[in-house]
């Protein structure tokens, strides 16, 4: 083994592909920026200087020591933090504050701190349903708005049918396995009218941890006659999804077929308070999580209405929770007036059934016509909405 041949590995700092040849290829020589390859130069010298200018807070460059003739493999700390003076830290902080809050960063930052202080000391008000308008506007709406505008590209038709003041009841179809349509309706109504839609939720919502407190904070209350009447009488814009779990958890094959509209309790509430009913048809929510299966036994065990199986959900794990980017159309229909009926109209079951059917038919017909308008499930931009007055 004494006459083992030594095969050089690497190029010893010369440009080239490590073939061991003394002379690199012409392409490699061009890459090196025209400096003539010298046998004795070190690795540091042959690398061209970085094109980016030095950063503001970067430490002063140290003069590189004279390289030894044979460079050993060493590492060198390139940005020692010890070299940053407090003045530079302050400058960097001010620079970051300017980047974050703009030129008026000081009042902005003070305002943020003031807001944080108020939140942390509990110095804010909630209404009797537990609605926290500040948190809803600052966080929930801000988080949902990009999803509504960029992901689902929600297009709104007939937003001026929503009254700008006084009580009104928005009745919508319900779909999409998870109540994403309710959240999107919340942000859409808020952005178009400046009013908060107060959703009515099933008792399951108020049983689930986290969901329950979030629902109350974002203005929801229990879907029962007492609360609906109380809110409507208080002049709130109330949203209701009368299909409930039957609508939201229906299989994909039954998409855009309205389910039974509860027992018409929402109509009684509107009749008692004399507020208009605004039918809302949502197209697009059916496709976000196509429900292809259900595990009824597990659902019964967990006490939930259904365990959804979508093409992606248990299969891809949490990634399956990302909704498909379908194109959404929201049409607010003509308000149905309820103040023209007699005093005891709410206690007349036949009348309540008739009005319920009228609302249901309106939504179903609008759904069909919207489906005709829609070119494709996923394609489309927000162009038509741009023509509408905001």
């Amino acid at each position, binding site marked *: 083994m004494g006459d083992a041949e030594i095969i050089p590995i690497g190029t010893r700092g010369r440009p080239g592909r490590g073939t061991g040849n003394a002379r690199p290829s012409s392409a490699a020589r061009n890459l090196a920026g025209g400096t003539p390859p010298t046998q004795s130069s070190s690795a540091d010298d042959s690398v061209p200087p970085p094109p980016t200018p030095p950063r503001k807070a970067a430490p002063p460059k140290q003069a590189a020591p004279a390289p030894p003739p044979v460079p050993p493999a060493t590492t060198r700390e390139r940005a020692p933090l010890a070299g940053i003076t407090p003045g530079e830290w302050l400058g960097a902080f001010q620079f970051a504050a300017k980047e974050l809050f703009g030129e008026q960063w*000081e*009042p902005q*930052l*003070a*305002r943020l*701190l*003031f807001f*944080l*202080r108020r*939140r*942390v*000391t*509990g*110095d*804010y*008000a*909630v*209404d*009797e*349903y*537990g609605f*926290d308008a500040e948190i809803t506007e600052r966080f929930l709406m801000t988080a949902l708005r990009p999803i509504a505008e960029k992901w689902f590209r929600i297009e709104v038709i007939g937003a001026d049918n929503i009254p700008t003041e006084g009580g009104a009841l928005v009745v919508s179809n319900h779909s999409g396995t998870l109540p994403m349509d309710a959240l999107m309706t919340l942000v859409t109504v808020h952005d178009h009218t400046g009013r908060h839609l107060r959703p009515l939720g099933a*008792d*399951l919502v*108020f*049983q*689930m*941890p*986290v*969901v*329950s*407190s979030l629902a*109350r*904070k974002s203005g929801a*209350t*229990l879907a*029962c006659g*007492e*609360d609906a009447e*109380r809110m409507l009488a208080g002049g709130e814009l109330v949203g209701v999804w009368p299909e409930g779990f039957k609508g939201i958890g229906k299989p994909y094959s039954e998409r855009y077929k309205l389910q039974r509209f509860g027992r018409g309790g929402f109509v009684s509430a509107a009749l008692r308070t004399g507020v208009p009913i605004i039918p809302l048809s949502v197209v697009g929510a059916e496709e976000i999580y196509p429900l292809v299966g259900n595990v009824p036994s597990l659902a019964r065990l967990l006490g939930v209405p259904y365990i959804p199986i979508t093409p992606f959900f248990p299969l891809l794990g949490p990634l399956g929770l990302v909704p498909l980017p379908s194109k959404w159309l929201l049409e607010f229909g003509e308000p149905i007036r309820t103040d023209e009926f007699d005093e005891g109209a709410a206690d007349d079951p036949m009348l309540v059934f008739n009005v319920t059917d009228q609302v249901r038919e309106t939504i179903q017909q609008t759904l069909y016509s919207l489906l005709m308008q829609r070119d494709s499930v996923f394609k489309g931009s927000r162009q038509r909405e741009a023509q509408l007055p905001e």
Partner: protein
Amino acid sequence: MSAASKVVLVTGVSRDLGRRCARALAAAPGIDRVIGVDVVPPRGDIGEVSFVRADIRNPVIAKVIAKEDVDTVVHMSVIATPGSAGGRHTMKELNVIGTMQLLAAAQQAPGLRHLIVKSTSTVYGASNRDPAMFTEEMEPRRAPRSGYAKDAAEVEGYVRGFSRRRPDVRVTLLRCANVIGPHVQSPITSYFRLPVVPTVLGFDPRLQFLHQDDLIGVLRHAALDGPSGVFNVAGDGVLMLSQAIRRLQRSSVTLPGFAVGGLGSVLRQARLAEFSPEQLGFLTYGRGIDTTRMRTDLGFEPRWTTAGAFEDFSRSLTRTGGYATRVIDSASRLVDPAAIELTEVPRG
């Protein structure tokens, strides 16, 4: 209403609130005499109130009513926790049997004109199916099965029975929200007095409070010229539990519901805090009561809002938390103070 010779009998004066209420009634114009009744003598000063040591659980009380010619009975010895009385068994006996005996005695008293019962909003229960605000006609969504809530529901049942049998007597039933104040010892105040307040994971209940001065005020108002009927009594507005704890500047720990219940029973057995079992439901789902009728029919206006009453209560507590506030305060000092003053104005 023979205002000139009004004789009021108050039960449960050994407790702090009962004693204060009896004194306030004695000081009120139009009330001649106030007789305080309890098993043990009150600890504090009872002023002009004449104390009669009697157990409302036995028929002696009928003799007191007859002898003193009582025309108004204020029943406020329905207790939320056993406390000094003993165990749950004693508490139930005191609440239910005591009320039965008192009402039986009252039924026999021909001179009786007015009965005022201090009940509680706990009778509405607390569940996820509750409406946001309970009005007086609403029933609890789940009938209470144990504890204070069941006692209060049974007491109210007897009171309804009494008002059917004696239609000539005005019966005022006051369903009060959680009474709070610097001197109040109750499950909710001892909960907030815990050094670290346990909360239920993922739930943020709505709370309503009634200041102790307003409780005394409403009882006096009802005793003087209260109409008959059932009335919810609470301060205006609601507080969320998280908000209340932040206002107290107290540290809290978030636990799953069963753990809070378990901790509660440990604290109860160790006698560290009066944590009643039905309180877990209240701390999970919260409760709101509608006080429209209190204003329109009863004609009572509480002086303290829920937030104000809570603030008054919080003055008696030392803060154990509030680290986040201190961090923000020290951060605010870095920013130009002029800029902060600029922002204080446009808010609100």
